[in-house]
């Protein structure tokens, strides 16, 4: 069978598993939410309402129905592409996700760019002199970013750049006194499309701190991955062969070692992208970034079942899609991969 047919079969088998995975995730989140103590009425009204009023509201929201009935209705809605309405404000969950997902994606994409640029630069910088000062500093940087608790790093950045220096805003996604641009939900893109430099810089100022924090925290992964793989590649036979042919060290590194070292980095990028779609919860919460993770955290606190279920299912679908895509990309780029 040709490689292309193998690839298609591999893709089909991965895609066939997607509905099963989504059903499992949807069922798990449904069950876990119901098993967790307390329900939306407890979260909304606390101790304030009398028992009769609580029971009436429970019935109004359909939470008095037997669990199998609620589950059946939930699955039927999912099959029809409906995620339900929020229990706190009756807003369709698709709209809630539509508002918050672009914020997470915008933050994720910029953070990933920063992580890749900084991480690859740091990882690459030690290659000239292994075990030298730069290499050691790079290793320390990689370990340091692993070890830093994200919320602590975010708070320190916030304190230094927003409170002490006053250079950048403390949190939020857009200046309070400006009207956000409408369109795709990606404020940088929308403000560029609208041709408004005021909006663009406003959005950019709010994005810099969260994206830099997240990017720098993730960059250690890239730095270490590149460093290790590049070292391995430079020690391999084909690099020795290239050197023995009299190629310059620069050419050996850039043309022979680096492309091979970058393949595992691509897999890491895929995993990182997948985790960023779910949002970097602590970063979003610390910077009051209105992304999907921030909304999910709120919805869990409010026991807003449809919103939690909807966000988890959509994020799971996106994560699955990204991981399939990355697998395919790696398979296409690396002839050694068999499937």
């Amino acid at each position, binding site marked *: 069978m040709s490689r292309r047919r193998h690839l298609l079969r591999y893709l089909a088998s991965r895609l066939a598993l997607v509905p099963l995975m989504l059903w499992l995730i949807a069922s798990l989140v449904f069950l876990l939410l119901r098993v967790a103590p307390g329900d939306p009425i407890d979260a909304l009204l606390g101790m304030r309402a009398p028992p009769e009023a609580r029971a009436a509201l429970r019935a109004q929201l359909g939470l008095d129905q037997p669990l199998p009935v609620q589950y059946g209705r939930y699955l039927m809605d999912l099959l029809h592409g409906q995620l339900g309405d929020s229990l706190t404000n009756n807003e369709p969950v698709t709209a809630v996700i539509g508002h918050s997902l672009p914020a997470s994606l915008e933050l994720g994409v910029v953070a990933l760019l920063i992580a890749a640029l900084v991480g690859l630069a740091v990882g690459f*910088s030690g290659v000239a002199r292994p075990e030298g000062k730069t290499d050691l500093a790079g290793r320390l940087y990689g370990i340091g970013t692993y070890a830093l608790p994200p919320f602590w790093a975010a708070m320190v950045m916030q304190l230094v750049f927003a409170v002490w220096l006053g250079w950048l805003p403390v949190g939020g996604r857009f200046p309070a006194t400006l009207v956000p641009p409408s369109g795709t939900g990606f404020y940088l893109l929308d403000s560029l499309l609208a041709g408004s430099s005021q909006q663009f810089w406003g959005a950019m100022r709010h994005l810099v701190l969260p994206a830099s924090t997240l990017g720098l925290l993730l960059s250690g992964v890239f730095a270490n991955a590149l460093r290790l793989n590049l070292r391995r590649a430079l020690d391999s036979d084909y690099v020795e062969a290239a050197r023995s042919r009299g190629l310059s060290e620069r050419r050996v590194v850039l043309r022979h070692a680096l492309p091979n070292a970058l393949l595992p980095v691509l897999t890491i990028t895929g995993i990182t992208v997948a985790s960023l779609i779910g949002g970097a919860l602590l970063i979003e919460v610390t910077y009051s970034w209105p992304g999907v993770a921030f909304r999910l955290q709120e919805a869990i606190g409010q026991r807003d079942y449809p919103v939690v279920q909807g966000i988890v299912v959509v994020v799971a679908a996106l994560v699955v899609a990204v991981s399939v895509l990355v697998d395919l990309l790696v398979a296409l780029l690396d002839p050694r991969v068999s499937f």
Partner: protein
Amino acid sequence: MTSRLLFRTALATLLPAVALLAGCQHPHPPGQLVVASKSTLASVDPIDITGTAGLQLLSAIGDPLYATDAGGQLEPRLAAAPPQISPDGRIARIPLRRDVLFHDGSRFDAAAMVFSLERFRSLAKMGYLLDDRISGVRASGPYELELQLKRPYSALPALLSSISLTPLSPKAYQQHRNRSLADRFVGTGPYRLVSSTPQKQTLLPFARYWGPAPRNSGIHLVTLSNSTALFGALVSGEVDVLMSSGMESDQQRALAQRARQGRLVEGIGPAGEIGYLTLLSDRPPFDQLPLRQAVAHSLDRELISERVSYGIRAPLRSLVPPPLAGSTPPAWPTYNPGRARELYQQAGYCRGRRFTLPLTFRSNVPADKLFALTWKAQLERDLGDCVQLEVTGVESTTAYRQVADGAFPMIFFDWSADFPDPDIYLAPMLACNKAKGAQCLEGNAAAAGSFWSAPGLQANLEASERLSGAARLPLLLELQQRAAAGAAYIPVWQVAPRAWAQPSLQRPVFDGSGRLVLQALSVR
């Protein structure tokens, strides 16, 4: 060489970029203010709103029929005069103002008020406000509202001061008569809502407002999700005013200090929230009255208030917080370790036998945890030979769900009234529909987790609902004295709302319901 070049390039790119961004601050439009708080807002529709942030917003974009001023006095707002009550106390007629317009230009009248109240009764999550007290609503004239009451209720004007009952334009809400309108609001308030997202709402003055115009040219309400960010935003000048709701005591204290140094101005409102202990009185160990009374004498409120909140959560020995009627003199005893020791001894403890006091607190509420740990240390220090506190944390929704099942021998809760009246603090804890001696079998006292009642208590509560003014006061005091003697509830502290503003602004002021008066915010 390569790495040095990389470093220099990065520095040469980053520094101008940061300088450029730092210089790109968008100035506030003149006269407009940014007010920050912690809570997000899922909806601006009164039928959805249950939390502080929503009620705060409604108080600026809506109007109640009556309002409580900072001194606790009720005054008509959209009502033209106090309600006229029928001789049997079951019908209330409320004359309405004739000069009020909704933000969409339509006229406010009795029909609009009926529309709004009926919508609230049938759809609102806080519909319980009216369910228990009002059986019907109708327009008895173009500008006269008639309410049929289930029983005589003297606190009706206070109930109608609840901002949740603000009128909505029937024209604007025609399509949303039976469902929520989460992101738009058309009411009668001094501001109109221009835009709304869960994290930001923009309010501009309503030019045709019937009352005094706001002293600023607009308000931007923003949400920052943590206390540190809120503190930083005010200190760095990013926001003009900061509300205390949800802020941690450390930061509140630091802001109060800055206010004392003249670097900020501070406003404090009337306390609307109380923190209290509920003791399960119909089961061991707290079925013994001496033990409950011993606990009431064991609480060093001053110390706890200072250690937990630097005094921001003021000690409270009454279920009704000041300045409401019946709050003074306080009915609960002061800290008295000597008397507590006697009572523990009476119950068989102290002589080589320590009573294990089981306290449950809400683990997701930081102040509750600090209260539990501080009290534990205080008891260990002062009454360590008689009692030891065993603390357990549970998530708040679990606590709310299980409290009516009698799951917690002693639990720490807070309570915020929906409108400022003593009844709204006493009835939810003391009312009992069915009692057997000192045990409440059915009613609010059972739902609140104390299961405590006393002969004649319910009759006193009902009498208090009928009376008003000076005639009501002795009854309110008696109710509290009886509750204090029963010691099934022990008030601990009260929480007053605070706000801090930049020194260039006027001192923030609060209304009698504890809401920041946004229209009064202005530059000095």
